[in-house]
């Protein structure tokens, strides 16, 4: 789960990491008031989508009036389809150099890793692609944690003077503490400014929390799902993994891999999936019913494809769920079912009784669903 910039900065600040002075504003007038106290300001749209800068979500203001004007424009706008409801009004920092500093997880090494580059302000993916030699990695053993020598390596990589060492060391130490205490999978400052006064200050901040750890962070768990569409929210409430796509074949499957493979096969045979919906392992008939209802009611769904490989999941439960859903939904859309595995005979019988035939082969089911949309 991604946090808003202002939330990430609040946390950073609480851990002693310098951030620009600033406040949130929900109206242009609030922005005016905040800016009156700060002088030159930067007005930043608070949205959870990436690429905000390029999309015009950051504006500079010399006066409170300009800040009001900037906030007005931002609060009327949308960034990549997301309405801007809040802006962050911050003092404008005089920046000497823009640096990159993050702490994330290296899957290959199975360790947290500091990524450090003297070329900040660019997205790390672009940076790594274009200037791989400019991105330095400093791995942290999760059993040992942060050790001060890491900041000395980072200092060299950032080309900072030795007088900045204690500042940098304290920032990196805090980043590691934030990662561990918040169960973060990313703590990123991009850019980290080396200011005209020679101080380090986090101009932007991004924190992503590991979803699996949310149960032990009740305060964060409450925030969960706020960036989702209404369908995504509903699916989430029902406990499904769900992602909106732009095709017309609704997909219900079990297991992330099989669900993606189903989507990929749809594409392979010339169709377009409307969504990713993984009912997970061992879904009950009620959960299947809700998944089927959700998808049948979705305006984009023209055909529904159910592809179940029963391991823990029982085919008879799935069949009963489908039947119940069909009774409760008024809209008539074709439904293609492929089921295999635990209790498949019973499942097939239940569906056949209601006139629904069941495919054995995934390819046959996918082709049938695609053909229905091409009609």
């Amino acid at each position, binding site marked *: 789960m991604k946090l808003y910039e202002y939330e990430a900065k609040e946390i950073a600040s609480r851990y002693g990491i310098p951030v620009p002075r600033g406040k949130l504003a929900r109206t242009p007038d609030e922005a005016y008031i905040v800016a009156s106290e700060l002088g030159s300001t930067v007005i930043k749209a608070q949205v959870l989508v990436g690429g905000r800068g390029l999309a015009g979500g950051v504006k500079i203001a010399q006066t409170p009036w300009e800040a009001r004007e900037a906030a007005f424009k931002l609060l009327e706008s949308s960034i990549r389809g997301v309405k801007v409801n809040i802006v962050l009004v911050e003092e404008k920092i005089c920046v000497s150099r823009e640096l990159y500093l993050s702490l994330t997880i290296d*899957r290959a090494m199975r360790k947290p890793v500091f990524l450090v580059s003297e070329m900040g302000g660019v997205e790390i993916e672009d940076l790594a692609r274009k200037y791989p030699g400019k991105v330095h990695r400093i791995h942290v053993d999760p059993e040992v944690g942060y050790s001060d020598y890491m900041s000395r390596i980072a200092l060299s990589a950032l080309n900072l003077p030795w007088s900045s060492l204690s500042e940098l060391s304290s920032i990196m130490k805090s980043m590691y503490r934030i990662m561990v205490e918040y169960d973060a999978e990313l703590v990123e400052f991009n850019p980290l400014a080396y200011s005209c006064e020679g101080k380090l200050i986090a101009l932007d901040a991004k924190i992503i929390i590991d979803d699996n750890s949310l149960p032990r962070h009740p305060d964060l768990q409450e925030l969960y799902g706020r960036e989702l569409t209404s369908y995504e929210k509903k699916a989430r409430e029902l406990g499904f993994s769900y992602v909106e796509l732009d095709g017309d074949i609704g997909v219900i499957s079990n297991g992330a891999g099989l669900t*993606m*493979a189903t*989507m990929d096969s749809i594409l392979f045979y010339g169709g377009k999936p409307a969504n990713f919906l993984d009912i997970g392992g061992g879904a009950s008939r009620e959960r299947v019913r809700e998944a089927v209802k959700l998808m049948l009611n979705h305006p984009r769904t023209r055909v529904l494809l159910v592809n179940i490989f029963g391991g823990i999941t029982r085919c008879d439960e799935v069949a009963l769920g489908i039947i119940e859903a069909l009774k409760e939904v008024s809209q008539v859309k074709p439904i293609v079912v492929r089921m295999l595995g635990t209790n498949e005979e019973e499942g097939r019988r239940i569906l056949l009784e209601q006139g629904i035939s069941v495919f054995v082969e995934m*390819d046959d089911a996918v082709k049938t669903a695609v053909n229905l949309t091409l009609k």
Partner: protein
Amino acid sequence: MGMGILVNSNTRVLVQGVTGREGSFHTKLMLDYGTKIVAGTSPGKRGNYVHGVPVYNTVREVIAEQGSPDASIVFVPAKFAADAVYEAIDGNIKLIVVITEGIPLHDELKFVNYARKRGVIIVGPNTPGVMTVEECKLGIMPAHVFRKGRVGLVSRSGTLTYEVARELSKRGYGVSTVIGLGGDPVTGLDFIEVAELFFKDKETDAIVLIGEIGGDAEERFAEYYSGASSKKPVVAYVAGKTAPPGKKMGHAGAIISMGMGDYESKKKSLEKARIPLAETPSQIPLLLDELLKKQ
């Protein structure tokens, strides 16, 4: 006897969390498959039996009364799973299969590092497990879709693996050992390590690798494969071609991997390593046909 990798018919198995719903259910299925389960643990349940398997409070008790198990399979809920893994590692169990889904990332990081430093192999977390066909099943996979044969199957996915196993069976291919690496961003084993085991295994002629988007495990494998001196034929399938960028597809994570992790990156890497890439699960046996014919 003694075929396949990691486990065989002699492997003495402990089930941690044996009295839970999942633990008990799969203990039955594993026993039915012939797996040698010597004990289970469940705090406070000492003296009970689950499908004839004696239950103990602690791993230490198991060792004292049944001798050291060779492997453990963990069905303990996410909140308590790390504790169970530490109990197994500290009890000197050398292979631990962690079925549990939803374990916090930093818990996994810590115990995976701890295990590796102590020479303990962790399969998972969030894995269907490992099975050497007709010898030992240490997992939750539906056994009947796996025919015995000479293909090593290694996967980041669960149900998709069963689908692939079935496609293989249909076309006359069987499986030597199947290993689910686990769906989480951090896992005990990776493709390279498992492939190395398969390369050495006399019962395995070829490998089917089932990847998915997210992370760079497939890219790393491709690079390793290009440089490997003694190797066996590999066919790959990668799920997630249609997944939109930036979204998390279930566990298929979005953790930064420096420009790697999307379908195109994986495809390019695998092609560069001359590893045939199937577009649907059903294509996998066809690619195997070609590849093995060539040899």
